[in-house]
Structures are given as structure tokens and as C-alpha cells.
């Protein structure tokens, strides 16, 4: 079979399954008793195994198979969850990830995993030291046909127990479809229809959604309450076409009773965590979700390149729209104006849709951090709790692609330099476990990402001394610096404050790269820190990089574009309002002194006629909390423009961040306000 055409899909889906494995493993670590989580991991691993075997990646399939065995054992409560076992499973997932990456890079996915496989086998075969005796009477090898093959939570158990009281019988039915069955989901539904006439389905494995999406091999299990007897039931199920076998085992009160010793352990833990009520409540909610999930959100996978092409074509349209608008104002024809106006409105909607299509939740970046933190905290012997807030916040894909590495740097920095060792924390009267909060939220046309830790904070004296020693600042500038400016010195290049260079961070190349990357994305980064109580690194990013709103201004014959996101206000001031302070012209803007920047001078615009001296047009712009007034000849108006780069030849032009093509076909330069405010 030629599998190459499926390779891309295989890689994508494998990544997703591995990601979900990692996430669920982390959840399981926090909640070792919750066997439904194990089920989730098991299913992901199982699908992965099937896919990789089909694609012919045997090492991948083998390792997944071994891991699956261990998970199966955990799921069937043959072995308990311990940190040691989780470590091995995590290791396997790491190996699997490496393999998938290798395949994606064109390799064959082969990798030496013997030690991990050996460990997995050891766990599976039930090495005494690792295995916690959870099940009292579990027959070790037979797979326990008399026992329950499905894992039930408390809620389901209660339902089953209650039904016994009402003279219902509980069965576990294992239905196997024929191998050549084409419409598996349809058969499942037919089986369910048969069953629902006779009684009530309590639980299915895999879940109903997965069954409907055909995410199972050929066998599925159903827990069923009815008053029918086994033979009739079996006959009825077998009537459905393409059903190969239907094994029915009766559940007795005894088979639950023997399980009773396990739940009390759970109950002892739960009141402390106050999770039990939440858990119970979430059940009906989940059911409701199931229903709505079936109706809504159908998705298709689209190649990113196609979206890029769509975006490029749309950008062409935006330029033509600008051209049409300027023609229609010139011609001043009523019907033309109306048509152009209508077209502009539709294009506005279209633009929104295209832009949102390219939006990706930051989750795709954030979801690799829990595992990273877990590893780091082990390496550094620190206790760290990572909280993620606002993972659903959406950003343009181009920004998402770039933001991952800077965030890794910052988080490593917070964990390594920020959070202290547990002893040091206790000595300071803080809880031994440090907290790192990763927060994302929208504000206006920007997305903010904050990394907050409750660690040591920035030692300002140390930073300042180091900056002076390394020649990053001079003594005079240092004296005049605010606390915030001192904090931000750690972003300067060639700066590293850690006394010891550790493996995690502190090579002194990290943070200045972070700053450059973020600024190249049109964002900025600031630091707030209080010594001994923590730091906040705050990153501001534009929502999108390709189409922005600007204010067009004119200086002599030249047109420049100023991004609306930086503009606070435009105003026209009289000559007398301009004051002088230390050779710097300033104005009084709503009670604050704002320095003036004459764009004409900055951009060395050739003058043919002197500008009118009586009035000045000023655009007040902002960078963080600082303001500046850009003096121009006149305002033209607001417009949506497509951002274009100046190309590889013209790079690092002072105060110019890019170019755009105007409606008349001419190029206008985009002013980089951040460079104009020091």
C-alpha cells in the first residue's frame, strides 16, 4: 500500500495523540485515582499504535504497544499509579515524540528504546516494588472474565447498584464487528437502538463520540441494564448485520462488592481536595456537552499554505479596494460611490473571517509547558506549580509560530532564576512550592502574555552593578534610571546575572534574543519585579501582522502611515503652544509634558516651500506609558493597509517598520513609533 499520501495526516494526528497523552498523564499525576484519565491515555495510545502499525513504523508501534499494556494494567487496576511508573510512561511518550519528529523530518522513526521497553515490561509483569496492591482478588493473568472489564466511576456504580434493587440485571456486553464491516459507526448505532428498546445503556467503552467517529478497532463494550435474559439479548444483537460476536457477562452485586475496598481510598482523599462535589456535578454537564457537541463544530483540516495564498490574494484585493475608493472620490458618481461603499463593507466582513480563520489559540504553544515545568522542577529540585490562564486566547498563526521560543526562554528563566529552592522559600516564609502563572488575554488590538512567578524577584543592586561592570550602561545613566528601567537591563545583550551558569538558562544569550524576537513581531516586553516576592514579565503582541489600520499623514509631498494601535489622539496646535525644555520642543498635552518629534527632520524630507508656521498637526503616539507628539504637515485619513516588508536589501532603516501600497499604486512607508520614543 502506498502510504506516503497519508504521511502528513499521520504525523499531524500522532502529534495530537501524543499531546493528549502528555496532558492526560499530567492530569493523572495530580489525580492518581481517576481511572477515566487512564482510559483517555489508553485510547490515544491505542489509536497511535494502530496508525503507526498501518504506516509501517514498527518501532513506534512496538513501544506504543508496551506502553499500552502498562496502561491497560493500570486501567484494570492490576497495578496502581506511582510516580515511578509515571516517569517511565512519560519517558516512553518522550521517545514516541522523538520518533514522530524523526518521521516528520523524513527519517524512519527508528530509535533505541530498549531500556524504556525493559522498564515497561518490568512494570507490566508486576514487579513487586512498583506495584501497589489495589485489587484484592484480581486473577493476575486471565484478564478476569468474571470481573468487570469496564472501569466504572462512583456515579455509574451507584446507578448499577440501584438497578439491582429494582430487579434489573446488569450486563457487560462485548460486541465484535466483522473485520470487513464498512460502516462501523452505523452498526454501533443499530446495536444501540436494539439495546435501548430493552433497557438502559450505562456506559460504553470507547465513549459514544469515539464510537460514532469509528475510533475503535472492531470490538466495543457496553454496560447495560435490563430485565431481559442473556439469550434473548444475544439473539437480538446478533440480528444486526455484520456483528461477529456478542459476549454477554452478567454483573452481580458481588462483582461490585469486591471492588468496594478501592473506593474508600479515594473518598479519604477527596474531602481534603474538595473535589468530590465538582466531580459529581461535572457528570450531567458532560452529558449535556455530548449532545451539543454532536450538533455544532464540524471542522476540516486545511493546509496552511492555502490559507496563506488566500490571505495574499485578499491583500491584493485590499490594495485594489483602496484604488477604487480613491477613483470613486475623484469621479464622484453616486452609483459608483454606493457600489464601492457596499463592496468595502463586504470586504470588511471577509477580512474578519479570513483573519479569524488564521487565528490559533495560544494553547497550541502553552500546552508544551506543563511537561517542561515538570522536567525542570525535577532537574533543579524545586517544587513548581504552573498555572495557565486564558489558553483559549487567539493569536494570528504567524505570531504563534514565533512566540514559542521566547516563551520557553522566559519560563526557564523564571524557574531557574526566579523560583528559589524549597529550603530558601521556607526560610523566607513562603510556601515550599513556587508558582509560575502563565496568563494570556486580549486587550484592544493587542494580546498580552504574562509570565508571573512568586520567586526571588530581581535584585536591583546586583543587576545595576553587573550592568556597570559589563559596560551595558554608564554611571550617569544608571543614576537616573527608574526601577523598571533597571529591571529591563536584564534584557540587554551580553547580560547574565546567575552566579553559576546552569544548564537551564543563564548563558547570557537568552533574554536579549527574547526582546529582539518580540520587537520584530511588533510587540514589546516589560518587567515588573518586587524583590523577594516575585516578577512579572509582560509581553504585548499585535493581534495580526498582515493587515493593520493606519493614519496616513503627509509631509511635503511624502505620505507616511502611522499605525492606529500606537496613536492616542491627533490635534492641531498653535505655534505659541510649543514650549522649549533643554533644547527639546515640548507641548502640554492634557496636563503632561509631551516631547515633539518633527518627522520632517527625522526623515530628512526635502522642503520646496516652507510649511505654514502658525499651526502644526500633531499625532500623539504612545509606547508603553511614554508619549510623544509627531509633527506632520497634514492628516490624510484612516485606512486599512497591507503590511509589506522592504525586502532583504533595505533592512534596519531607522524608524521605518515596513511599507504598504496605497490606492494610487504608490508606496508609503510605515512609521515605527517605538523607535521614535526612547
Amino acid at each position, binding site marked *: 500500500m502506498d502510504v506516503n499520501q497519508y504521511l502528513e495526516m499521520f504525523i499531524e494526528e500522532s502529534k495530537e495523540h501524543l499531546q493528549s497523552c502528555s496532558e492526560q498523564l499530567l492530569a493523572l499525576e495530580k489525580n492518581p485515582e481517576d481511572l477515566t484519565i487512564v482510559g483517555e491515555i489508553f485510547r490515544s495510545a491505542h489509536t497511535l499504535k494502530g496508525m503507526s502499525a498501518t504506516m509501517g513504523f514498527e518501532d513506534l508501534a512496538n513501544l506504543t504497544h508496551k506502553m499500552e499494556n502498562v496502561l491497560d494494567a493500570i486501567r484494570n487496576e492490576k497495578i496502581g499509579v506511582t510516580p515511578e511508573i509515571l516517569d517511565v510512561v512519560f519517558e516512553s511518550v518522550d521517545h514516541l515524540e522523538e520518533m514522530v519528529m524523526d518521521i516528520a523530518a523524513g527519517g524512519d522513526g527508528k530509535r533505541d528504546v530498549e531500556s524504556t521497553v525493559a522498564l515497561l515490561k518490568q512494570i507490566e509483569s508486576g514487579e513487586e516494588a512498583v506495584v501497589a496492591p489495589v485489587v484484592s482478588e484480581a486473577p493476575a493473568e486471565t484478564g478476569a472474565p468474571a470481573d468487570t472489564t469496564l472501569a466504572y466511576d462512583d456515579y455509574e456504580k451507584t446507578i448499577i447498584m440501584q438497578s439491582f434493587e429494582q430487579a434489573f440485571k446488569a450486563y457487560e456486553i462485548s460486541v465484535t464487528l466483522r473485520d470487513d464491516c464498512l460502516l462501523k459507526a452505523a452498526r454501533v448505532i443499530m446495536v444501540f437502538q436494539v439495546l435501548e428498546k430493552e433497557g438502559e445503556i450505562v456506559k460504553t467503552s470507547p465513549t459514544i463520540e469515539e464510537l460514532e467517529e469509528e475510533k475503535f478497532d472492531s470490538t466495543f463494550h457496553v454496560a447495560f441494564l435490563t430485565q431481559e435474559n442473556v439469550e434473548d439479548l444475544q439473539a437480538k444483537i446478533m440480528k444486526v448485520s455484520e456483528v461477529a460476536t456478542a459476549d454477554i457477562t452478567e454483573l452481580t452485586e458481588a462483582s461490585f462488592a469486591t471492588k468496594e475496598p478501592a473506593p474508600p481510598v479515594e473518598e479519604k482523599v477527596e474531602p481534603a481536595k474538595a473535589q468530590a462535589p465538582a466531580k459529581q456535578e461535572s457528570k450531567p454537564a458532560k452529558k449535556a456537552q455530548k449532545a451539543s457537541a454532536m450538533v455544532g463544530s464540524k471542522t476540516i483540516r486545511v493546509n496552511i499554505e492555502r490559507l496563506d495564498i488566500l490571505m495574499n490574494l485578499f491583500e491584493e484585493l485590499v490594495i485594489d479596494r483602496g484604488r477604487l475608493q480613491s477613483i470613486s472620490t475623484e469621479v464622484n458618481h453616486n452609483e459608483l460611490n454606493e457600489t464601492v461603499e457596499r463592496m468595502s463593507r463586504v470586504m470588511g466582513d471577509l477580512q474578519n473571517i479570513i483573519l479569524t480563520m488564521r487565528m490559533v489559540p495560544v494553547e497550541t504553544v502553552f500546552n508544551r509547558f506543563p511537561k517542561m515545568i515538570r522536567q525542570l522542577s525535577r532537574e533543579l529540585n524545586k517544587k513548581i506549580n504552573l498555572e495557565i490562564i486564558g489558553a483559549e486566547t487567539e493569536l494570528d498563526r504567524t505570531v504563534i509560530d514565533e512566540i514559542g521560543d521566547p516563551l520557553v526562554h522566559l519560563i526557564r528563566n523564571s524557574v531557574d532564576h526566579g523560583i528559589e529552592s524549597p529550603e530558601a522559600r521556607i526560610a523566607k516564609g513562603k510556601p515550599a512550592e513556587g508558582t509560575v502563572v502563565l496568563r494570556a488575554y486580549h486587550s484592544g488590538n493587542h494580546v498580552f502574555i504574562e509570565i508571573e512567578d512568586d520567586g526571588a524577584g530581581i535584585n536591583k543592586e546586583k543587576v545595576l552593578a553587573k550592568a556597570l561592570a559589563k559596560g551595558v550602561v554608564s554611571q550617569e545613566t544608571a543614576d537616573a534610571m527608574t526601577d523598571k528601567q533597571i529591571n529591563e537591563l536584564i534584557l540587554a545583550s551580553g547580560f547574565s546575572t546567575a552566579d553559576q551558569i546552569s544548564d537551564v538558562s543563564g548563558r547570557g544569550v537568552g533574554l536579549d534574543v527574547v526582546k529582539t524576537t518580540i520587537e520584530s513581531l511588533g510587540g514589546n516586553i516589560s518587567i515588573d519585579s518586587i524583590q523577594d516576592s516575585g516578577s512579572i514579565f509582560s509581553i504585548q503582541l499585535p493581534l495580526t501582522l498582515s493587515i493593520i489600520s493606519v493614519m496616513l499623514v503627509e509631509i511635503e509631498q511624502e505620505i507616511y502611515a502611522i499605525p492606529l494601535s500606537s496613536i492616542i489622539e491627533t490635534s492641531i496646535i498653535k505655534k505659541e503652544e510649543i514650549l522649549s525644555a533643554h533644547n527639546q520642543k515640548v507641548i502640554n498635552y492634557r496636563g503632561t509634558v509631551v516631547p515633539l518629534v518633527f518627522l520632517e527632520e527625522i526623515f530628512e524630507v526635502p522642503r520646496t516651500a516652507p510649511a505654514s508656521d502658525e499651526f502644526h498637526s500633531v499625532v500623539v503616539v504612545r509606547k508603553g506609558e511614554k508619549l510623544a507628539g509627531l509633527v506632520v504637515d497634514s492628516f490624510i485619513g484612516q485606512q486599512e493597509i497591507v503590511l509589506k516588508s*522592504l525586502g532583504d536589501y533595505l533592512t534596519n*532603516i*531607522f524608524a521605518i517598520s515596513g*511599507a504598504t501600497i496605497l490606492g494610487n*499604486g504608490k508606496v508609503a512607508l510605515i512609521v515605527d513609533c517605538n523607535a521614535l520614543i526612547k
Partner: protein
Amino acid sequence: MSTVTEQESMKVIVFQLEDKEYAIPVSRVQGIERLMHITRVPKTPNYVKGVINLRGVVTPIIDLRERFSLPASDNQDSTRIIIVSIKDTEVGFIVDSANDVVDINMKSIEPQPEVVGTVEEEFISGVARLNNRLLILLQLEKVLVTLQQ
């Protein structure tokens, strides 16, 4: 020129600056445009005239007269922009006129004579004789080099 020595001849575009004729291999030329509106880019070397909108792509423009320190001249009807591609970037050169496509015999290319005129030595990769004409072959990478550093 080293890359094309195996071939017998090569097609070049001939353009004029002052009173001399220069040549660029056709394979490097993306197009020849009439003069259009050029947007000045501030704080660039004086030979960078600015950028143009070349069918939706913002393309930098270099005035070869300024680059070769020739006296400036008024733009005329014959003035052209030759778009060349160098290492994946497209750049336009302003020239007095671009009038010819000719085949030059590889054997007729000689290293440049010691004294060739005002054009700086470093930009020239050789000189080709064609009947009674002298064509100066340009080393395109060198023309751009200062800014890229």
C-alpha cells in the same frame, strides 16, 4: 563569469550610462520598466533612490549613476529601470537607456584593462568586445554589497 565559461556565448542586456555601455546577463534580468513614482526611503545611502511598487512587490531602486559616482543627469524619456534578481532579492537599477540584447562570445571577454575609466574597478568582472563596441560586464553582487554588510 566563471559560471558560464563552458558555454560558447551568452545573451546580455546592454544599457547605457554616460557614454559607456554596460552588460548584464539576460538570465539575471527580471524586466525593464519605464520610470515610475519612487518613494524615497530616509536615512539610506544617496544611491538608494527609494522603493517602487512593482506589481505588488515593494522593490528597492538603485541609481547606478550615483553608485558609480557619475554626474547626475535629469531623467529623460529613455531612462529605464532594469529589475535584476540577486540572491533571491529583486532590485531595480536606474540607467540612462536600455536598448539592446546581444550575444557575446565568451572568448571575447577579457579581464578589464588597468585603466577603464571612472567606474570603480570592483564592480567590473570583465570587458567584452563586440565589433567596434566595448561592453563592460558588471559584477552584480558587488554593486549591492555595501548595504548588505
